[in-house]
């Protein structure tokens, strides 16, 4: 099977190891990964900060970049949700019904990583080995916009050697919220403090999630407080094998 990777802007420029890990996992389970060079950003930040018109050229670019692919995989719940729930709407705002139809088509072929592995490929055991204590934070957009449910946990439970511990109040938002983290830094930090306290109670060595953006925020707090807890994207855990 062939699949196009939507890297996402944040992963491309800030945490490329997440996309490398995604490629490793996909190739290990037999997927031929393609990288459409024309891709940039889904435009979610523009839309969610109140600039939907500025997002129109980004949606146009995204649709043009991915139109020719049968399956598109994204290592982010939030970007997948933007493609699924915002793109056609933004195209309609531009008065471009052809773009809206094309955006809906692309969205229908776009999957968040855990959805793609579990639903499309029917795989839960990807042959990973990660002998560490891990706690998983279900990011809000994966949880409530995509409803990925148990899929990431099914994948993590199948990892050899993992000690997966439940995160107390897991479904509470970490406080990232895109530009919320800057515009309402005090509230964002207060939410983060509670999330970190919950992570500390688990005794985990690693905090895992399916969104690099939330992990950047959580990891930034974990690092600032010198907690010794590291962050790993779901793909980064699934990428490690006994041979590594």
């Amino acid at each position, binding site marked *: 099977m062939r699949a196009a990777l939507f890297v996402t802007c944040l992963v491309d420029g800030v945490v490329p190891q997440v996309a490398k890990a995604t490629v490793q996992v996909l190739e290990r389970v037999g997927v031929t990964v393609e990288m459409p*060079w*024309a891709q940039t950003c889904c435009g979610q930040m523009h839309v*969610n900060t109140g600039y939907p018109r*500025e997002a129109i050229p980004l949606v146009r670019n995204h649709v043009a970049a991915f139109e020719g692919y049968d399956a598109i995989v994204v290592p982010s719940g939030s970007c997948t949700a933007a493609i699924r729930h915002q793109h056609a709407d933004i195209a309609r705002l531009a008065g471009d019904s052809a773009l809206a139809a094309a955006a809906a088509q692309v969205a229908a072929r776009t999957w968040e990583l855990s959805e793609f592995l579990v639903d499309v490929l029917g795989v839960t055991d990807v042959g990973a080995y990660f002998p560490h204590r891990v706690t998983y934070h279900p990011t809000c957009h994966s949880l409530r916009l995509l409803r990925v449910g148990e899929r990431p946990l099914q994948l993590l439970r199948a990892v050899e050697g993992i000690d997966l511990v439940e995160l107390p109040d897991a479904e509470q938002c970490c406080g990232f919220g895109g530009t919320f983290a800057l515009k309402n830094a005090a509230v964002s930090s207060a*939410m983060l403090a509670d999330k970190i306290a919950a992570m500390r109670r688990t005794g985990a060595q690693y905090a895992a999630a399916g969104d690099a953006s939330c992990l950047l925020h959580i990891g930034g707090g974990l690092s600032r407080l010198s907690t010794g807890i590291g962050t790993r994207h779901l793909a980064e855990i699934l990428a490690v094998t006994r041979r590594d």
Partner: protein
Amino acid sequence: MTFLGMPTAPRGVGQLRQEAPFPVAAARALDDSQLRRNLRHATSTIRAKRAAAVAEVPDWAELRAAGAAIKDDVLAHLDRYLLQLEQQVTAHGGTVHWAGDANEANQIVTGLIRTTGQSSVVKVKSMATQEIGLNEALAAAGIEATETDLAELIVQLGHDRPSHILVPAIHRNRNQIRDIFLREMPDAPPNLSDEPAELAAAARAHLRRKFLAAQVAVSGANFAIAETGTLAVVESEGNGRMCLTLPRTLITVMGIEKILPAWRDLEVFLQLLPRSSTAERMNPYTSMWAGAVEGQDFHLVLLDNGRTATLADPRGRAALRCIRCSACLNVCPVYERTGGHAYGSVYPGPIGAVLSPQLTGVADNPDLPFASTLCGACYDACPVAIDIPAMLVHLRSRVVDDKVAHHRGPTPEAAAMRGLAWTMSDPRRWAWALRAGRAGRLLGRRYGRIRHLPGPLAAWTSSRDLPRPPRQTFRDWWASRDADGERENRS
């Protein structure tokens, strides 16, 4: 799209506007550790109870869809239903008054009370009268209003403001309540403890004297049935029913969106509301009346105050489905940290963040649509399926449009967003920008991570480190891998 010409809630009256920017008010609230403990305890308790009460109902999803559909029908035909309601209330001996805004409503109520010759009234808990600042208007006219809902009484005696739609004194614990009673309630027993039963008994004795003396009552309404002219108040304490039945004159102030078309629609809402608000299967007291009972005068004041302006926005109007249950407040991670006062408006939390800016016009509440991480917990909890996160995103664009329209040249944020969009709408420009971003590696050399950022990004590093930019972007890695692969293929 323009919303000009639609009257919004007037300035200078009522409680719908932020006094300080939300981030400032929120930071102040966060510093109050007692407030945070009180809120955390209260919201986490009610969250768990509500989840259990909702899980008991096998057809909750269908009820929720029905609730949304009934309310959408009301909003689509509001003109017709309002006239039908007026006709039915009048036919049953009541008098209907139309108030375009808070000032008109306050004048109508003040005039009606003056006609009775009374100088004091008892009140049923009501958001509409909080919204228009009725108590303050009555005080200015020399009329004393006594709140009879226990929590509203605590707020009133504490010279305080409600911080929650359903539990207005949620920010107070029992110790603080005892102190307020001892200080402000002349008939409170001097040895009053902070046991809830003792506190309730003291309030009961205090209120009983007010009920027996009252000649005029003011209430709100949870529902008004257009078909029958029936008004409904649901409550837990029975104090509302005392107000509704004992005084000779009853004045009800109600937002125009509170209508339900038919009596049988109550079947849906009397299930949705109690389970969502107090996590009860059924609320203890449901009072219903149509028009005036014998020997009583009944007046219904229908309040617009920005509701028609809200109705004019196709992407914002679903906020008028709200039945004021507060489920969205209780599940909101932002509300849990800041409490209600930070929002400025009597409608705090997620629903307040979409309702208040629409009632006042976005220029008067520009921060509220941004007071959310868009986590979506509110939408899941809403019994009438208001997609609050999507509405917040829509209102953010209205705020931005308003700011840009009133700013000489683009705002700095708009300029940054446009620049970023220009860069990101072209893959070559974006690839170039990504490589330029590696210059950021100059930062954070000392600790291996970035601990201080300049300008607006300093808000990030106030509590969070940032990793140094990587040596190689993903697309550069992929390009080098492709090149390696091709070399291997050739050899």
